[in-house]
Structure formats: C-alpha cells, structure tokens
C-alpha cells in the first residue's frame, strides 16, 4: 500500500521562535498519509496549523521535528525549488511584470525545458483553464477569477506530484467560488494529480474532498471521508466546527462492545451504538445534528421535552429552538416539504424525537 502514498508527515512538529519568549508550537507531532490522486483537505480555524503543514510540504518551512516524505522519500531537507510540488497561493502571487503565458511558462523554463516544449505545455494549460484568448494580457489587466485560473495553470504546468492549494478561493465572491469548486474538481480529475487543499470553510471541505483532516491547535483531530467527519465526529471540536450540533451531557449506565445504555438529564434512558474506545467513566457528551431530530406533538417516542421558543424560516428548512432547561436551546431543523411547514404555536410543550442510531457519543 505504501506505493499509493503521495505525501506522508511523520511526527512533524514546527516551533516558531524557538528558544525565545514568544515560542509558538504551530504543529504538534502531526502524522498523516495522503494517497495518490486524492483530493485531501486540511480544515480548521485560523491558527490551527493547516497552512504551516502546507508550507512544510512545499519546503518554505522546515520541520523542527519529524519528517516529510514524498512517495516514500524523505524530502524534509530539500529547498522548495528541488521539490516536485507546486503551490497555488492565497493571493495567487502572480508575477506582475510578466504576461499570462509567461507566468504559466515560468516553472517549465526554470526546469530547463526547451522553448518549444514550454510553448506546447503553456498552450495546453491555457486550454485546460480556458484562458487561450487572454494569454498576452498583463496580470493587472485580468479579473480576480481569471488570475485564479492563471495561478492554477502556472502551478499545474510543471506536472507536480502534488498540488498544494492555500485557501485559493477565499478572495472570490460566493458565485465565483462555487464555480471554481466545480472547476477544481474537474482539474483534479483531468490531471490525476494529488491535491492538498487548505481551507477554513467547512462547506467547501465537505463538497470537494475525498478525505478531510480536521485540525485545531497544531494537531489533527480526525481524518476521514466528508460523511464520516460529519456523521461520526470523534470529539466535541470536530462536531462543533463542522455543521450545527446540539450538545447534551449524559451518564453511562452500562456498556458492552456494540451498545451503550445512557441516561439523559431528563432521566430518560436510551440505548445508542457504542463508539470505538469509549472512555471509562460515566460522564459523556452527546452530539445530535439538528436535521436528525424531529419535533413531535403526540406523546409517542418522546426522548426529550421542552417548550418551543423560536421558529425561524430559512427557505428550504425551518429551524425550531426548544428550551429544554439547558444553557443553550436545542435546535431542530425540518425540511419544508412542498413549501409547507408545520405551524406550532410558540411556547407550547413539544417533544424532540431522535433516532438513537444518529446520536454520537463524544470523547472529550
């Protein structure tokens, strides 16, 4: 299987300002394997270390500890210009004194390719990113979206083993961002190059990636396919960072390999699937997604009870907030079928029904 690994970080730590007063541990023993031809996303809030990890793979920084491997070879000591890895920078970093075509050809020229080879590849890249008719424009004569395409073409032209993308869509407006998300997926598919994408936008991460690594405070908390990260978050940070989540304390009554019997604050006992490696100890936190709960007004299958405080219409869905006697209200999201929505008077007693199989027990 190791043949299929494109990039591997082995116990990588990065400390900035080491041996000074302002020592910052940007990465803390990070280990991760990224497969060939994978669209892999590093997701986390600003300052979580995701960009540092990207810069370590590019060679702009060198690890304080641990190693970066590219196709099994340790490249930790190589300078960036000797690594077959290219970057799309957040603000594109296009060369302002060169044309579109000269920018795209720069890497090829630096690799020592002949004029004809460079011209051929640049031509193919211009077609790939649909910029043929703007090839002689200067960088300040094209729009932000077009600059984005040039930056992509420039980084893809030398056919790197891995393409690193540092929040490349953050400067674009929403509509263009959605278009570029599709475009990036297409480019990754057509070129067959491994993409490592850095973002703080969880929606972007979920829609584009084959796998996502959620990072916080210099550590990778969870790696998995988007649906795993969303449906089976391992800890409170991941559950909270990705999508909306209701948290609820609970007490473990008994547990075996596959199931756990827990008691909710209201005294109701339910049985839910046991997560791997459930901690010993009786206090746990439950995570329940708003769309996996239902509002019920009859008395069957009621797990949790409270009074309805708010009803918020958000187009496709309606959000109900229910006061269940905890600090924050329990949020339930219901899809508006046929544009209709159930009308429930505010202040009325309602029940919240949850399928126990969708409840996540968090180890925090």
């Amino acid at each position: 299987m190791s043949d299929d690994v494109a990039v591997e970080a082995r116990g990588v730590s990065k400390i900035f300002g080491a041996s000074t007063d302002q020592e910052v541990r940007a990465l803390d023993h990070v280990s991760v394997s990224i497969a060939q031809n994978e669209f892999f996303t590093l997701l986390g809030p600003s300052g979580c270390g995701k960009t540092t990890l990207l810069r370590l793979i590019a060679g702009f920084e060198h690890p304080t500890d641990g190693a970066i491997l590219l196709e099994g070879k340790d490249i930790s000591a190589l300078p960036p210009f000797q690594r077959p890895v290219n970057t799309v920078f957040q603000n594109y970093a296009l060369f302002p004194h060169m044309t579109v075509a000269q920018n795209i050809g720069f890497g090829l020229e630096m690799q020592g390719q002949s004029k004809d080879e460079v011209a051929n590849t640049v031509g193919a890249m211009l077609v790939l990113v649909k910029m043929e008719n703007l090839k002689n424009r200067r960088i300040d004569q094209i729009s932000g979206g077009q600059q984005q395409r040039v930056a992509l073409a420039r980084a893809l032209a030398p056919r790197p083993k891995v393409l690193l993308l540092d929040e490349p869509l953050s400067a674009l407006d929403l509509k263009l961002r959605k278009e570029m998300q599709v475009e990036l997926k297409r480019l990754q598919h057509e070129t067959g190059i491994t993409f490592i994408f850095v973002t703080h936008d969880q929606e972007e991460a979920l829609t584009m990636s084959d796998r996502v690594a959620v990072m916080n405070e210099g550590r990778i908390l969870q790696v998995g396919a988007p649906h795993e990260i969303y449906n089976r978050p391992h800890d409170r940070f991941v559950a909270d960072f990705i999508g909306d989540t209701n948290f609820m304390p609970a007490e473990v009554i008994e547990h075996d390999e596959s199931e756990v019997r827990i008691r909710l604050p209201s005294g109701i006992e339910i049985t839910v699937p046991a997560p791997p490696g459930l901690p010993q100890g009786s206090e746990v936190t439950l995570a329940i997604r708003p769309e996996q709960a239902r509002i019920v007004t009859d008395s069957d299958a009621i797990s949790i009870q409270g009074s309805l405080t708010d009803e918020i219409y958000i187009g496709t869905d309606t959000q109900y907030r229910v006061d269940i006697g905890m600090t924050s209200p329990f949020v339930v999201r219901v899809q508006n079928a046929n544009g209709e929505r159930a009308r429930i008077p505010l202040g009325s007693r309602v029940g919240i029904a949850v399928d126990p199989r969708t409840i996540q027990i968090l180890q925090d």
Partner: protein
Amino acid sequence: MATSSRPFSIKRMPGFSLLALTCFFALYMPLAPLVVYSFNAGDNIALWEGLSLRWYVSAWENDLVQSAAIRSVVVAVIASVVATSLATMAALGTTRTRPYRGQTSIYAMVNQPLMVPEIVTAVALLIFFALIKESTGYHGYAYLISAHTAFCIPFAYLPIRARLEGMDRVLETAAADLYATPWRSFTRVTLPLLLPGILAGAMLAFVISLDDVVITEFVKSAGQDTLPTYMLGQLRRTITPEINAISTVLLGVSVVMVTIIFFLSRKKA
C-alpha cells in the same frame, strides 16, 4: 448647521490657501528672473536689453565651462553608478535577510550622511584625503569621485529600499516554488520588479552629485572644477548672464530628472 455636517478639511481653515500660495510663490518666484535674464541681450543681470541667446552661445563656446561641464557629468555618472550598485546591495542586505542583531543600526548608519552637516563631511574629507595625498603622492580624480560616491549612497538607497519593502515577498517564494534557484529568482523576479527603484535611485544620485558645491570645493585638486564650483568661482569676479544661462540649463536637467524619478517611483510593483 450645514457646514458642521461636512467632513473636516484643512482646505477650509482660514488663510490656508493663502499660505500655500505664498509658499509656492517664495519657492518658485526667485527662479523667474534667473531664467528670464539668461535670455538678456545686454551684459547686465538686472537690466533688460532685449531677447537673445548670446549667453547660451557664449557659455557653450567657453572652454572652461565646457571642461567643467564634462567633468561634472563624468563624476556624476561614475559616482551614481557605483553608489547605486552599493545602495542596491545595502538595501537587499537590510530587507532580504533574516533579521539580525544590529540591522537597525546599519540602516541608521547608511542614512547618517543625510544628517551630518555637509561642511563637516567636507572638512573631514579634506583632512583625510590630505593625509593620503601626503603618503601616496596621488592627486587624481579618485578623491572627488569617491567622495561623491559616498554622499550619493543614502540618496540612492532610500528609493530602492522603499521599493523592496513594498514588494510582496510571496513573489520570491512563488519563484522558488516554481523551481527557480535563489539566483534565478533574484534575476528573473526581484531585480525586474526592483528596476524602477534602482533607476530612480541612480537618477537622484546623479542630480545630487551634479549639484554638489561644498564637498567638491573642499576635495577637488587644482584644475578639477565641476560646473557648480566653476560658477562659484565666477561669482567672485564679474557676474554676466552667462551664469544665468548655465544655471537655467542645470535647472532644466534637474526638473527633467526629478519628473522621471517621480513617475518611476509611482510605477506599481
């Protein structure tokens, strides 16, 4: 009440426009008679006798003016080229390195000549060069040229450093990412983007060298008059509109250069 809702503007302070006009008048008005009387047909610098180019012709045909002008230009070209090269290296050394101890003091030391009174530098150089002349017996142009080079460095350094600081360092990172060695990244990305700053610095140094009187007067050996020191010498004798003509030409050169520097400095990085 309508006035109070408008944003504050210094232009509406009482007397502000008048003060501004007075300043411009004081700065530029004295130049007018100088330029006008350079075209005087008569011998007097204050008595108008009709329009003529005779003083320009006279200055052009004056061997002393010619040789001083050529000397001025040669010294200014050599001094500005050497000073700009050194200033470029200094600017790279103070912005494109990892921060090191003493970086700020190096910056201050490069700019120090701007603060030291020129007459002090001039006297110091006079004494220092006298010692060297004494021991080596060499009396050539090297003294004048090295003195000019030295005081031109900070003038060349400032626009170059400003441009380097305004340049996005991520461009050099991008070049390295695209397989450019540090040297090729410098020649293909840093240097082309720095060029307007280098040209501005060189032209500023050229103008400063061309204009210099004090240091030149103290450092030059016999027969090494530059145009400004020649003019100073002439003023001690009879003053003719020839001086006006030479001054007007120098003024014209300076205005052209400063205008070019202005546009170069504004060019986007």
